[in-house]
């Protein structure tokens, strides 16, 4: 029989340390739904999503009950909608509404993929879709949008960067009455991945199968609790503990992924072995860094601690799953992490430190509320900086900032639920990057792209 201590360890992880499967995400290709008639395309989309994902929520709940593991979210990612707009033209918002209808019918909490990939330039449908994002995110509630504006292979499309600064602002303005929630559903990527199960950046890449199941695991609380048992170990020992813990968490993700794929009759894609925090106490990445010995997240040493954490999570997890993918690493979304929120409020965590942290974490500047007066060109410049870090380091970076319309640094935006609450962080507004952003054009791909 299984060792009683092992059983207790697993139960303790779930009941005390917030271990859960953060998301089971079904990726669905919509390429075969393209049509020159927009309404027909929308109808095909609705039919395909409800046919393939009709059972997704139920299967998720069944697995949750049988295995005793909470599965927090059931989600869907779809082919970037800009590719369908390319065939049909017309108003892209119709697609957003069709996706919302499908989300309501299937009961999933988000559908991601109101997206465009423009890292080297705009093709048919891309610009129209991007310009429709503010409206699409304001008339829907469960649709997520992302735009990829750069990659290590292609460089950075600065025309798109300039445009996205304006789009992020517009999205905030149009949803200002709801704490600018639209921007919480909009990510600007460099090196976006095609099999990411996490929102808001999930979309179903063109190289993926017709339908696939991805799983995103979580568990910052488990890592923190494990480190707590080793108050005087050196960093090598801490790395070892993180690896062991990540291994166990990922095994659980692998089990749930293969089980969900079997029950749904859909191929298993990947496990995304991320540490994804929530605003709940005991579910914070910042608190892991503090457990490692930092007085507060954001102080000097934070980047080094995060680099080690991110690396150890991958090393531990990679052995535990047959296919690892997605973003995999440690997320640092400010408003979704109790420790980050506290550090931002106390002023110990600043935007510049977060930018440095994104060079070693799994994604980028995430869920950061910025002053409402921040002009579009400054948002574009923040995006450009972040994309440059991703491009040069061959990693995914992203920007999900929320301009808090009508509010100033020091105040707070309340999103509720997993999105948490965002203390508005200080942005350098005294000197302008406007001329640099207005030049537009394309930043050429770096030397790192020439690997052949």
């Amino acid at each position: 029989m299984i060792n009683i201590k092992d059983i207790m360890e697993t139960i303790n992880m779930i009941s005390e340390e917030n271990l859960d499967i953060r998301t089971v995400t079904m990726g669905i290709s919509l390429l075969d739904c393209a049509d020159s008639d927009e309404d027909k395309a929308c109808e095909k989309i609705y039919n395909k999503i409800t046919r393939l994902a009709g059972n997704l929520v139920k299967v998720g709940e069944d697995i949750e009950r049988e295995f005793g593991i909470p599965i927090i979210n059931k989600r869907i990612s779809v082919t970037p909608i800009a590719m369908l707009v390319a065939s049909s033209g017309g108003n892209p918002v119709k697609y957003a509404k069709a996706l919302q209808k499908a989300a309501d019918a299937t009961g999933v909490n988000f559908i991601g993929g109101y997206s465009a990939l423009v890292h080297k330039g705009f093709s048919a449908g891309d610009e129209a879709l991007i310009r429709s994002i503010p409206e699409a995110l304001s008339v829907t509630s469960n649709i997520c949008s992302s735009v990829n504006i750069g990659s290590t292979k292609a460089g950075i499309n600065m025309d798109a960067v300039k445009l996205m600064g304006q789009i992020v602002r517009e999205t905030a303005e149009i949803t200002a009455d709801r704490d600018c929630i639209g921007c919480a559903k909009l990510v600007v990527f460099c090196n976006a991945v095609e099999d990411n199960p996490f929102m808001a950046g999930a979309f179903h890449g063109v190289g993926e199968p017709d339908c696939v199941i991805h799983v995103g695991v979580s568990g910052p609380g488990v890592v923190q609790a494990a480190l707590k048992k080793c108050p005087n170990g050196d960093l090598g020992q801490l790395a070892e503990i993180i690896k062991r813990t990540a291994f166990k968490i990922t095994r659980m993700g692998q089990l749930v992924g293969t089980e969900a794929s079997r029950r749904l009759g859909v191929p298993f894609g990947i496990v995304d072995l991320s540490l994804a925090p929530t605003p709940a106490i005991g579910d914070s990445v910042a608190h892991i860094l503090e457990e490692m010995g930092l007085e507060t997240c954001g102080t000097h040493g934070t980047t080094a601690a995060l680099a080690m954490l991110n690396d150890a999570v991958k090393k531990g997890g990679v052995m535990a799953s047959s296919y690892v993918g997605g973003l995999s690493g440690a997320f640092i979304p400010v408003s979704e992490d109790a420790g980050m929120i506290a550090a931002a409020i106390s002023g110990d965590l600043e935007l510049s430190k977060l930018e440095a942290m994104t060079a070693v974490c799994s994604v980028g500047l995430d869920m950061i509320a910025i002053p409402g007066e921040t002009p579009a060109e400054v948002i574009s410049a923040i995006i450009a900086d972040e994309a440059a870090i991703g491009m040069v380091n061959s990693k995914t970076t992203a920007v999900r900032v929320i301009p808090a319309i009508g509010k100033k640094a020091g105040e707070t935006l309340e999103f509720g639920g997993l999105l948490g609450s965002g203390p508005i962080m200080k942005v350098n507004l005294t000197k302008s990057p406007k001329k640099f952003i207005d030049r537009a054009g394309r930043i050429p791909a770096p030397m790192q792209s020439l690997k052949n």
Partner: protein
Amino acid sequence: MKTVVSVIGKDAVGIISKVSNICAECNANILDITQSVLQDMFVMVMLTEIKELNCSFASFSDKMKALGEQNNLDIRVMHEDIFNSMHRI
């Protein structure tokens, strides 16, 4: 399919009897029982075979949960694979 029924809480008379009663009611075969006191808590773990269950898994699990709530115990029914995959390579 085998499941692990775990019972955690303050020790009291008749816990095992109440849990095994539900197993008998639902036709779950008890394969192994082990118990211990960990950190002042009574912990009992029962491995059961449920392929001949005369009700749905959900109702078996709900009955156990309800018993736990009545007696101030944490009772969980979980598929054994979760422990195998986490703790064995």
